[in-house]
């Protein structure tokens, strides 16, 4: 029993929680508390996020491995494989190192951190309200590059959320095109878009909604199960992600028992589960106090900077502008500053 206590003891993010359970300095729990503490089986067998730096790095790589770790501003900054450089040198011995770099750069056009990931072209969205037609989006065009942290700002009712829904594939535009990489998503069918939302976009709504009958960790695993993965494989992924947002002590709780901030952290983890191309967040801190909001924004920043995850976020809070590397301002259905 004693050994099991130590083995199952969560590491640093849980220190306070662990101490609340009555653990001594060595992390040993009293017998009664140990009997009560039953860690989720997926958490107790998975690799711990905080425990080992090497493990952590390889683990993060396995989660977000297909994205460049550091943003490259220009084509020449993109790191090329050694073998490719060596072979180019052998074939062109007359060229200098710099010339070879430039020569290889032609092969890497479009692969730099500046490649476009979202492109909205002349999108118009009208709603019919009784006999009147309300024009919400008025010829909106803008682009988001890979690795950008874009904040969509503007007054209430200017069409920010509608634009997000159009990009997310939930609200069909009256006219215009939405390209994700080179695919116009509104030329495809409903099922394709559902699949696309599931696999390629992380979504964080203003207010998180959950499957009530599922625990927190099961809710987190939902996108993977929708994708068709087995329950256990989805739960293994979810166990990793829940540690990433330091919420493993809440794994077996009901989602609506969590505070607003905690729920948003879980929603963030859920959005990252399938390693999306980008994340769409619709005022994720709108219902949170300043402290919880700041925590969430720090997490966004961390994901954006460390894992180069593209984020498109709607916010009203001017204090949060500092986290973004680009602001897109909307007024009355138009983009006024991009």
């Amino acid at each position, binding site marked *: 029993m004693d050994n099991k206590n130590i083995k199952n003891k969560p590491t640093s993010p849980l220190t306070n929680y662990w101490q609340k359970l009555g653990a001594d300095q060595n992390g040993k729990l009293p017998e009664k508390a140990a009997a009560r503490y039953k860690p989720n089986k997926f958490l107790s067998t998975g690799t711990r996020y905080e425990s080992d730096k090497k493990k952590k790095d390889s683990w993060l790589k396995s989660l977000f491995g297909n994205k460049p770790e550091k943003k490259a501003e220009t084509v020449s900054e993109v790191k090329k494989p050694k073998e490719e450089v060596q072979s180019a040198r052998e074939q062109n011995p007359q060229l200098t190192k710099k010339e070879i770099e430039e020569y290889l750069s032609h092969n890497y056009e479009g692969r730099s951190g500046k490649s476009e990931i979202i492109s909205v072209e002349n999108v118009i969205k009208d709603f019919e309200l009784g006999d009147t037609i309300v024009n919400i989006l008025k010829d909106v065009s803008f682009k988001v590059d890979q690795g950008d942290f874009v904040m969509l700002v503007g007054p209430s009712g200017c069409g920010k959320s509608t634009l997000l829904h159009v990009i997310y594939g939930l609200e069909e535009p009256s006219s215009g095109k939405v390209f994700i990489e080179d695919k116009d998503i509104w030329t495809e069918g409903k*099922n394709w878009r559902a699949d696309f939302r599931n696999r390629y976009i992380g979504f964080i709504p203003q207010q998180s*909604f959950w499957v009530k009958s599922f625990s927190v960790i099961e809710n987190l695993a939902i996108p993977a199960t929708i994708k068709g*993965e087995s329950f256990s494989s989805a739960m293994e992924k979810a166990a990793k992600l829940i540690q990433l947002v330091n919420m493993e002590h809440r794994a077996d709780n009901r989602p609506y028992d969590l505070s607003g901030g905690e729920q948003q952290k879980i929603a963030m983890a859920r959005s990252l589960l399938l390693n999306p191309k980008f994340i769409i967040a619709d005022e994720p801190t709108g219902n949170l106090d300043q402290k919880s909001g700041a925590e969430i924004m720090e997490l966004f920043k961390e994901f954006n900077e460390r894992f180069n995850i593209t984020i498109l976020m709607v916010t009203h809070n001017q204090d949060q502008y500092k986290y973004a590397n680009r602001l897109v301002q909307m007024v009355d259905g138009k983009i006024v500053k991009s």
Partner: protein
Amino acid sequence: MNLNPFSKKSKIADIPTKNPKNGEIDPKKTEVKKKRAKLSKMRLGMLVYIGYRNLRSSKLRSFLTIGGVAIGIGIITILICLGFGVQKLVVSEVTKNNSIDVVDISNSNLENFIVINDESIEKLKAIPGVEKIAALMNTGGKVYWADSQTDSIIYGTNQEYLEMANVKFANGNAADWDPEGSTAAISARLAKFLGFANPADALGKELEFDMVLSSDIAANVEKDTTSEKGKLKVVGVIADEQSTYLYLPLPYLQKNLGISGAQSGKLKIDVKNIGEIRAQVEQMGFVTESVVDLVNDINSFFTIIRVAMIVLGTIIMSISAMGMLNTLSVSLLQRTKEVGILKALGAKRKDIFKMFVFEAAIISFLGGAIGFMGGYATAYVINVIFNLLAIRSGHSTLNFIFIPSYFVVAIVIFIFFLGLVTGLMPARRASRIHALDALRYE
């Protein structure tokens, strides 16, 4: 070409779709099929798991709904168990001494009086489908033993008749009943009347008898007379405490007392042609009776009972189904936002549809299984209690519960359709909700 429907989707998608009109490959449909095959699908197990978790999360509601279905199915099972069981019991009691391939014939048609004699036996044998024939002569008489004497019915017949009538010797051996000799099988009541405290004691005893001879059974007799006393040896006792009779071999009576005809008999026939055979026999002037008539009457009576049960069961099940439908509809309203978030996260219409159908299937399956087993167990307990009471009051036990295998199949199909039908409407509604509308739902 891989035609196994359980192999990987991509393999099936590789099979080109043909236009049913001209049989040519339709490139557009093939492309759509390939695209669909590439789309992800939620696993069946996961859909069932969601349904199960949802039922578990609202335990009281699930308990009441499943209970409603279980009570409905249970009552139907009890009614069917008892209905079929009692029917089977009655039919088996009726056919116990009369096999369905045996037809009784008699000359009780007063307008055209006919006796079963050698000539008519030959004619009856000639009817296609008649396998065996045995005549039964009966008349009144007296039996004497020591100082006792009693009136008795005297039957004259042969071994085949006893077999067809399923007459069993409680004491003695049927093989000792010599058709040429003066051997007799007597009923237990006759033995008692003759003074044997234990009917088995009559076995081997030599009795005396005389019998009334009439022109019906003896051609050479003009007026009813009583025969001279003859002797008979008891070789068998029949366990019948109700009637006083004895069986004597007909050949012996024909030889020694001039018996030439019998009033009734039994035909063993090919039961498939029973209608035709009976018609031909009746054309000869005989009256026929078959246990099939009685079984048909019993069956038609129980058919009426069963129809009443079906009506009652349908009413009960309709109430259960409405309860189930109500539960699923309320569940859908409560889970509208869940549907919204699932759709927003990429769940397809089909996934949501299946999710609700599976939930209905779980309810109906659990309700059905519990109801069926509970109903059968209740019927069984009723039977046991009835038998205990019967034993206490000195009667023999009876098994009156029975479920025909086709009813089990029918109930499985019924449960399947119940789940499907009650699940379809809410599932269809849920799958059609737009994700954004669902998320905005209050």
